[in-house]
């Protein structure tokens, strides 16, 4: 189990690093994390299903300003690894991701706070005109975000797998069922957050156009994106011509 824990933690650390540490290439997204973790542990199908399900919970949750969203990356790493290694139903496993994401979110907040110290150190280097010192601080900060993925995943696999196996034996039917129901409802939360960010009285009708297209006509996302892009161009051009009229 030690070797497996190390392997999982290494993958978890690398994908976690992507969020803040380097690049934002989105290997940190649940659909990608699930697939990689599945490949590493030899069960790609389970990885894809869990990654896809967790992705639906979080695809509407976005980082704005100084807010740190729940850490879906750690959550997917740990939920996928625990599911494959202890045999939890892939329909239930994604709901494990929710509390993990909240806990890992507080770890990220902790690092953002620790990094204030780094910035104060940088003030000192700036006074000395020491650019190389500041560059080293930057690498240190980057490495912290690798650790933030590595350590929780290592502990979770090393001690969690047996605990989860024991737990599975005693969890009652209604609880498991409740988790499945929650799993169907949870994507609505991310979508609701996105809606509150983007919608206004003026723009709300566009949401219902999209809803009707899918609910009554089964349009898929690519079709919606094409219609949406056309509507966006029409709308901005129309608003512009209205503004021209007023200014004349």
């Amino acid at each position: 189990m030690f070797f497996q824990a190390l392997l999982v933690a290494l993958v978890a650390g690398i994908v976690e690093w992507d969020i803040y540490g380097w690049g934002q290439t989105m290997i940190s997204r649940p659909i990608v994390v699930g697939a990689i973790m599945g490949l590493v542990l030899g069960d790609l199908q389970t990885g894809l299903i869990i990654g896809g399900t967790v992705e639906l919970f979080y695809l509407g949750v976005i980082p704005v300003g100084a807010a740190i969203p729940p850490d879906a990356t750690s959550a997917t790493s740990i939920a996928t690894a625990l599911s494959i290694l202890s045999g939890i139903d892939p329909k239930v496993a994604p709901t494990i991701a929710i509390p993990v994401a909240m806990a890992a979110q507080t770890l990220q907040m902790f690092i953002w706070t620790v990094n204030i110290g780094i910035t104060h150190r940088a003030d000192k280097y700036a006074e000395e005109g020491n650019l190389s010192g500041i560059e080293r601080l930057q690498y240190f900060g980057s490495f912290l975000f690798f650790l933030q993925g590595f350590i929780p995943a290592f502990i979770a696999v090393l001690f969690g797998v047996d605990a989860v196996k024991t737990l599975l034996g005693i969890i009652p039917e209604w609880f498991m069922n409740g988790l499945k129901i929650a799993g169907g409802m949870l994507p609505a939360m991310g979508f609701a957050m996105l809606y509150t960010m983007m919608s206004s009285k003026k723009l709300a009708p566009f949401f219902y156009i999209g809803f009707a297209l899918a609910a009554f006509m089964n349009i898929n996302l690519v079709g919606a994106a094409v219609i949406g892009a056309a509507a966006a161009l029409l709308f901005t051009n129309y608003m512009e011509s209205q503004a021209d009229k007023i200014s004349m």
Partner: protein
Amino acid sequence: MAEAKEQRVITEKDLKSVYWRSFFIMSSINYERFQNLGFLYSLAPVLRKLYTTKENMRDALQRHVKMFNTHPWMANPILGTVIALEEENAQQEDVQKDMSETINNIKVGLMGPFAGIGDSLFWGTIRPILLGIGASFALQGSIIGPILFLVIWNILNFGFRYYSLMYGYKTGVNMLRDLKQTNIVQKISEGASVLGLIVLGVLVASWVTISTPITITTGESSIKVQEVLDSIMPSMLPLVATMIMVFFLRKGTRPNTIILGIFIVSFIASIFGVLQ
């Protein structure tokens, strides 16, 4: 006066070096000044070239160690603009005369509106669309989902950061003026919201799954409630659930509290068998 100005010392190689470094923009993000060190780190090759005395370097470092925060991609056009300004600053006879304030004002003036564009267009619209498409493949057990997502996203990620940096450097200080004249910030975020909301409607209808197993039996005939709901409007319960959450969010309820609520409702519904 005209001949003394605009000697370009920053080469394409310097700009490329800044480009590769810009991927570290978030590395030491912190609650006090956010991406300040990321910005400084990205700028390092340019500062090394422009400021050779200790005093000049110190002034430059102190200028950029200040607070900076925007969408990670949108830092690059600002980096480009700042490089152009630093180049001009370094060539003044009396270095640091009052460019320091100008440079900082431009940074602060651009980061807000640019964060608005980045958050609504890249985070709020393009990423959810690509993720939604990717997730629908992944849920069918197809590896095409994550691969397709990664490829398209990173063409945008690496491409946008490169071209916006080069654009920022070429446009220089004029960028702020162009922004105001064309009203582009509002246009982009409004257009992104239109596209985003249409896609969001589709996501609610296709990916939120709530249904009820309740059957009402009167005498010999029994009515399945879900069938009735579907015949009125498919995906009615997902729409209602989403709008209830919107209501609570607008009232200022914390997301984590709402999530806790979802679990409680689900367990109660499971015990009484009203949802499945």
